[in-house]
């Protein structure tokens, strides 16, 4: 056994965004010893960038019901979501919001003192009726408010944080139990083995596989790729959400709340374009629908600007007061990055890579599940996942706005509750041998010695990967483009084997972190483009111009991509917990 310092905890959590911190708080409050490992200080996690809000049927503004929320989420998922998990989430939502409020989240308020809720895309009353207002908001900084409050509560609960530690790989024994992870301290490069009876992956999404993205630079799919390398397949990775309103060419997010507050999209002719694509819901149709509409307008020559390559989001009719009160953050972002005040002029926008619907397959207790012989979903002992890195799946083929903040707190909490049960039945750490430690150490030490200079740099390969994914796996896809994309990504993976970095320092070596992150991006990119090529239908965010229809008979099933077998499938869990199943129907907004 190599001579590496070891630390022992009941539970290890990798990632300190909203999912990881909600789980950590539940565990710390239950007196479990918890280690939270994060490559950045917790409040730098990407939850901080979530703007518009969090869905829950509180009915503070308009009538509402968790069952309507469930219907909208199933429909929004294009019937690929697992209905037991969706029922669980929608039922848990009001309590999840109240808990956050009790933790101190500064939600915006109604005159009667209750939490302010705004309309968001894909929301309806009474199973497809009038627009609902279900999204609980703290101005347009809801993610910031939630992340900071959860971190603050973890300070109170004395959770043990390993800030600026990078997780390299999961450690497991011969029987397949997950026993913790190899991590290293970014400050001094020292490796540490963290032994834990349970490990929760809460590492977020992987928007950095695309060139233009709303995602932070840290969103590199680390947990997803760790799972892949541990033999866990990734589920539904072809479903990547392109947010309709990223700032054109730059990628900064303009919240859907901007349309929820009354903003709308116009094309070069000044026409309200969504009236043609979604006559009823208009600008508050599902994100996949709005993104396709914008891309279609541009393809058909009705885009704005000298290159006709974007459309405009009009907000100035809302008045400066509403914009300053409800959308102060995006106003500042527009002024800073493009010099446009949305209170005075429309904002150029275009669909931008935003959210990884797919991820590490789990059940609704957050347990990671894999196919074993005839069983499609067998838990991996000791391993959990929650939040964007996981695929429960509550989002299916298309996530509704406001459901991701909900997902992270509901399933962070659910996973922690299952972990508490697991800990009561598994009182001792299992023995850790060096079998799975060796490859993890090698993966890390590969970058220790200054390479000789014949390989390419990490940044060159990363830029190429991002361009390939953007050109070959974007809003609209077809067989030829995808097939070429698969070949290009695989060629890049080969070239990466000789990649080099020119920094061999032990002290805060960000070049090494970026190299390890790129390796993780390759795992995610392979899963995404292989799964996209294999799925011969259009569903949710996966739009094939050569297979334009949804095909429930052949394709209402989850994709599973693994390094060992490539693309495989498993059934959708169509049976909810207590109510009738929502059978697939044509999606009209």
């Amino acid at each position, binding site marked *: 056994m190599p001579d590496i310092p070891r630390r022992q905890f009941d539970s290890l959590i990798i990632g300190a965004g909203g999912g990881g911190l909600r789980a950590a708080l539940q565990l710390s409050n239950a007196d479990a010893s918890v280690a939270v490992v994060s490559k950045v200080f917790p409040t730098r996690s990407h939850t901080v960038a979530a703007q518009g809000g969090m869905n829950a049927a509180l009915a503070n503004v308009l009538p509402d019901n968790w069952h309507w929320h469930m219907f909208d989420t199933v429909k929004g998922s294009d019937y690929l979501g697992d209905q037991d998990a969706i029922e669980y989430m929608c039922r848990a939502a009001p309590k999840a919001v*109240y808990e956050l*409020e009790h933790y101190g989240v500064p939600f915006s308020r109604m005159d009667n003192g209750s939490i302010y809720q705004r309309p968001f895309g894909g929301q309806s009353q009474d199973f497809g009726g009038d627009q609902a207002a279900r999204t609980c908001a703290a101005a347009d900084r809801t993610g910031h408010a939630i992340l900071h409050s959860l971190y603050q509560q973890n300070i109170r609960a004395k959770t043990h944080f390993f800030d600026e530690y990078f997780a390299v790989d999961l450690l497991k024994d011969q029987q397949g139990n997950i026993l913790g992870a190899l991590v290293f301290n970014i400050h001094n490069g020292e490796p540490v083995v963290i032994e834990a009876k349970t490990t929760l992956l809460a590492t977020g999404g992987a928007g950095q596989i695309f060139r233009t993205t709303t995602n932070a*630079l840290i969103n590199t799919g680390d947990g997803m790729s760790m799972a892949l390398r541990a033999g866990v397949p990734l589920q539904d990775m072809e479903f990547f959400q392109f947010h309709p309103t990223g700032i054109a060419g730059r990628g900064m997010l303009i919240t859907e709340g901007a349309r929820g507050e009354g903003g709308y999209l116009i094309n070069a002719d000044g026409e309200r374009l969504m009236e043609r694509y979604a006559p009823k819901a208009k600008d508050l149709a599902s994100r996949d629908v709005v993104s396709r509409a914008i891309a279609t307008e541009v393809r058909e020559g009705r885009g704005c600007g000298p290159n006709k390559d974007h459309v405009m989001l009009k907000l100035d009719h809302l008045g400066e007061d509403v914009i300053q009160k409800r959308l102060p953050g995006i106003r*500042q972002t527009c002024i800073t990055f493009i010099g446009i005040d949305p209170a005075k002029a429309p904002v150029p926008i275009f669909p931008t890579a935003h959210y990884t619907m797919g991820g590490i397959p789990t059940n609704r207790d957050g347990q990671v599940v894999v196919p074993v012989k005839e069983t499609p979903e067998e838990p991996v002992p000791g391993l959990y996942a929650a939040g964007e890195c996981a695929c429960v799946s509550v989002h299916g083929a298309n996530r509704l706005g406001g459901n991701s903040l909900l997902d992270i707190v509901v399933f962070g909490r659910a996973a922690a509750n299952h972990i508490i049960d697991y800990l009561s039945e598994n009182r001792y750490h299992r023995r850790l041998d060096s079998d799975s430690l060796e490859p993890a150490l090698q993966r890390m030490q590969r970058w220790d010695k200054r390479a000789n200079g014949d390989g390419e740099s990490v940044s060159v390969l990363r*830029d190429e990967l991002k361009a390939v994914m953007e050109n070959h796996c974007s809003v609209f896809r077809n067989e030829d483009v995808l097939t070429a994309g698969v070949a290009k990504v695989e060629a890049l993976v080969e070239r990466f084997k000789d990649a080099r970095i020119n*920094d061999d320092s032990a*002290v805060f070596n*960000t070049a090494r972190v970026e190299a390890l992150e790129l390796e993780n991006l390759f795992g995610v990119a392979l899963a995404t483009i292989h799964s996209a090529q294999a799925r011969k239908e259009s569903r949710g965010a996966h739009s094939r111009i050569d297979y334009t229809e949804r095909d429930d008979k052949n394709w209402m099933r989850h994709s599973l991509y693994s390094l060992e077998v490539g693309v495989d499938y498993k059934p959708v869990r169509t049976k909810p917990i207590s109510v009738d199943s929502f059978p697939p129907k044509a999606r009209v907004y």
Partner: protein
Amino acid sequence: MKFRIYRYNPDVDQKPYMQDYELNDVESGMMLLGALLKIKDTIDETLSFRRSCGEGVCGSDSMNINGINGLACITAVAGLKQPVEIRPLPGLPVIRDLIVDMEQFYQNYRDVKPYLVVDDPMPEAELAQTPEQRDKLDGLYECILCACCSTQCPSFWWNPDKYLGPAALLQASRFIEDSRDQATEERLAALEGPFKLFRCHTIMNCVQVCPKGLNPTLAINNIKKKMVKRSL
């Protein structure tokens, strides 16, 4: 465009030095973070700095830019005097290049017990708060813990372990002002003494540099008023 950047790697350097870099193709609208990433990607991989969201909400890439603290990701290079001189945040130990050890800053933040305290049993639904009560949190809750303010404050430079600094005090105010919080008395009592709060000499550097446009001095003055009222 010319840049002059503070370099120090304790692994190899006896002492810090300034290194010059030049970028030829600076696109219009480029932010300083974009320029730093370009230098790192194309000229010198060893240049080290923190970064994450790239849009001014995570607080990672705070640094001293031509003498003034700010976030690289929302500082346009177009308006900057050349060579753009970039240093780590002043007043905190340097780990490497532009990366400082933030532990003292975080310690001060934890010292103000930055979490909501409610002693009463929690209701089944939300704790009620009127829009007017909620408005009092505007200008306080938006802090991103970038440390631009505290590390531009001379009082913090002299006594970082005794004076809490503007960022931590802004957080103290955020909970003192929150109508739901029931620990106001303890919070005010904890700020007594000559250092923790009263080392603020209203120099107002914090207000000048806050990248989120917040006003820690105002928050500190509001706490001072409450403490005076309390002592009467």
